[in-house]
């Protein structure tokens, strides 16, 4: 663990010293210090629940620390004034971006601060467009000021957010999981942009679960574990193994985690020429019982849309789905459920959990029929037993099953969703980005879980935009692009880096169609 170099505090853009914060008896931060130097990209990593969000909220002036100091340019600042001071200096770019889709790029950038002419009643459109153009050109963003934000891709939206920050000459940016929706090319572009910003004296706090990116992009990395700062080090000397160990307390040997496929299993589901009006352009595949099939592709490749079509939620869907030899007619959700098909969606907050309902309810929605007595009422005892069994099997950490499910960490929430389906004994389970926004420790737990599920005979399709994840999980990977499967890979034939190369080249040369 490298020690941080002592530096004149007056130079630090923003700093907290020895802050602690607890929420209703739970200690979220214990004596954490963090500082941000000018022109640096400072990575913040840690498991869910390690305290990252709490620290960021304190830094942004949203939360008051129980103890400790907030320091700006060497002088302590009262947390109540912090937000006001930071309004001119700080811009936070969240994972779910906060832009208005029905407004243009220029309008979004100047939202709340539009240049006016005359008696400040009328918007000075010309000045707005000119200023926007200026910022966009400076940053090398290939967008027009009057482009409608709703039509932009995730990475373009992100660039608009950055442009917004730069337009108002913000000196500090907080970026929360900025690369989860980006392709490799777009990530490189983002890295370029961040270098550019750094050259202009802007400092960035970069929060991410993707340790390789953090190591590439950041100058320094702060690791939080269980509310404490366990390290603040130069990114140059670090390694993923080291960071993982600091975050989680044990070494995770990535190469070793691979699924061993079993032979001689019958086909459980066959898809023939599935098409839907939203993006799926003719996909055929076969899934065997107990197999884990990976779907890889960038955002927009059609992975989600394919799984939704199979689950009965696809719009204008055509094609044949056969489960255990029987063809399902026009698929709808009821039919999918009746045929033992389950889907764990991509965005657990939006379409997965019932946030204010208790944990046990969230687990039993699908399987509820099993818990009914003769009168059609839910038997609490049976329910409790089912919930306890599931929690044990999936190692779900919950203080009490009647707590609201939103009180759980992201990883545990995801496990609750998997439990929901597990309770219903599905034949086929589809997982869409099952570990998005989940910390390293919980990620590997979920991989193990999914593997065990497959071992019990369930056919699993797992979609992910993280190739590494599929390397650990799947036996076969189907690479999708623009709604079609362009190539298939058997994992056992590749090492991780070989796979990465082969998949990248397959995506860049779509003419090279494989099996």
């Amino acid at each position, binding site marked *: 663990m490298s020690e941080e170099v002592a530096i004149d505090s007056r130079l630090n853009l923003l700093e907290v010293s020895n802050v602690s914060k607890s929420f209703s008896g739970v200690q979220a931060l214990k004596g954490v210090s963090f500082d941000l130097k000018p022109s640096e990209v400072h990575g913040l990593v840690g498991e869910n629940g390690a305290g990252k969000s709490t620290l960021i909220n304190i830094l942004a002036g949203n939360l008051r620390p129980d103890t400790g100091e907030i320091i700006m340019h060497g002088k302590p600042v009262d947390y109540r004034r912090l937000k006001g001071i930071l309004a001119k200096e700080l811009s936070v770019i969240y994972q779910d971006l906060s832009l208005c889709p029905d407004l243009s790029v220029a309008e979004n950038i100047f939202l709340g601060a539009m240049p006016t002419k005359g008696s400040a009643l009328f918007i000075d459109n010309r000045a707005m467009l000119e200023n926007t153009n200026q910022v966009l050109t400076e940053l090398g963003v290939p967008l027009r000021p009057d482009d409608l934000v709703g039509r932009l891709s995730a990475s373009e939206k992100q660039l608009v957010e950055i442009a917004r920050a730069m337009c108002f000459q913000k000196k500090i940016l907080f970026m929360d999981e900025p690369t989860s929706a980006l392709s490799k090319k777009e990530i490189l572009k983002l890295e370029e942009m961040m270098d550019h910003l750094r050259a202009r004296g802007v400092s960035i706090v970069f929060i991410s679960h993707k340790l390789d990116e953090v190591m590439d992009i950041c100058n320094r990395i702060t690791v939080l574990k269980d509310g404490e700062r366990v390290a603040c080090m130069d990114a140059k000397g670090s390694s993923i193994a080291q960071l993982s160990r600091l975050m989680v307390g044990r070494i995770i040997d990535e190469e070793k985690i691979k699924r061993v496929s079993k032979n001689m299993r019958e086909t459980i589901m066959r898809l023939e020429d599935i098409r839907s009006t939203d993006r799926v352009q003719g996909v055929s595949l076969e899934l065997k019982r107990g197999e884990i099939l990976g779907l890889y592709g960038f955002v927009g490749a059609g992975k989600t849309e394919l799984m939704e079509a199979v689950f009965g939620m696809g719009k204008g869907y055509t094609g044949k789905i056969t489960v255990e030899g029987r063809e399902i007619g026009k698929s709808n959700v009821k039919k999918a459920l009746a045929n033992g098909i389950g889907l764990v*969606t991509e965005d657990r907050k939006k379409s997965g959990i019932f946030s204010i309902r208790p944990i046990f309810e969230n687990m039993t929605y699908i399987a509820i029929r099993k818990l009914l007595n003769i009168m059609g009422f839910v038997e609490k005892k049976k329910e409790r037993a089912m919930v306890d069994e599931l929690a044990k099997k999936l190692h779900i950490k919950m203080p009490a099953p009647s707590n609201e499910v939103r009180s759980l960490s992201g990883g545990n929430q995801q496990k609750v969703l998997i439990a929901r389906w597990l309770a219903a004994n599905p034949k086929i389970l589809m997982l869409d980005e099952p570990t998005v926004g989940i910390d390293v420790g919980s990620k590997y737990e979920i991989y193990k879980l999914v593997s065990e599920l497959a071992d019990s005979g369930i056919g699993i399709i797992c979609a992910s935009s993280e190739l590494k994840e599929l390397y650990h999980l799947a036996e076969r990977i189907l690479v999708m692009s623009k709604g079609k499967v362009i190539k298939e890979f058997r994992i056992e034939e590749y090492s991780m880096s070989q796979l990465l190369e082969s998949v990248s080249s397959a995506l860049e040369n779509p003419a090279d169609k494989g099996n």
Partner: protein
Amino acid sequence: MGEVTNVELGVATTGSKLIRLIKRIGTGEFGLVFILFAVNLVFFILNPAFLSQENLINTLRSTAILGIISCGMVVVILTGNIDLSVGSIAAFAGVATALAVKQGASDILAACVGIIVGTVIGFFFGLTSGLFKLPTLLVTLGSQYIVRGALYQIRDGHPVTDLRASFSFIGNGYFLNVPIPVFIMAIMFIITWVVLSKTVIGRKIYAFGTNQQAARYCGITQTSIKTLVLTFSGFCSGIAGVVFSSRLMSGQLNIATDINLQSIAAVVIGGTSLAGGKGGIVGTIIGVIMFGFLRNGLNVVRVSAYWQMVLTGAIIIGVLILNHYRESKEE
């Protein structure tokens, strides 16, 4: 990690059930209940006759109709929807019941007519909302006029009068010294409670109200839920209509014009969130009773009906503000 006693989340992991209940009331989970309780206490102090047995029974009876309708309303609100047509359906069903009595139907048969009429109307507009994916707020905004207007048109403005005297039993009779309407209200509360807390349908209702999208992925469709809840609300309105007709011994066209507002107020006072997914019948019962006593008290001190309307609206807004503060505290 330290001990987690989630009182703010409404679930304390220490203490008996009663203490938990009191804590929940204290944190405003049951809305303005304790404020209304205090107000009622004031009425009692001003005039001890307020809590005499006679007044108690009278008040309960006059709240009964509100209570019955609120059972339907709370189920609708729990799904994140609202039903503005309850008054109109109650009136329509009431007149239908009166007509049946006039045609010689027995009490039971006439009651069935009224209930079925209410249920069918509710079903129709519920299905419409579901199939066309329309917000029930808008659909029932329109249906309340359709139903009330149709009623006036069919009857040409005339109420149904001259009913046989024995029909007054449902609305004015007693059973074991308790007014029949209060019995009916109690039975409805129990039925609603059982459905909401013990059945699959109850789970579906809460799920849909919490997160409609996630509910879709669990196989719970908009069509089924909206149809279901508006049908149940129509069912409750139908029952209310029967009680109305029996109490008034006639089928009046202009009854229940502001019961919409009152039942929404009762439900919201009881801590059920208008956004759906949170709340339930227990709070509603308390809200109905508190609200009923409040109105009774105001009548006793001769506050005009118009001021009472103002007050009802103010209470709804007050509860919403209170909930807002509770939500932001929970963040």
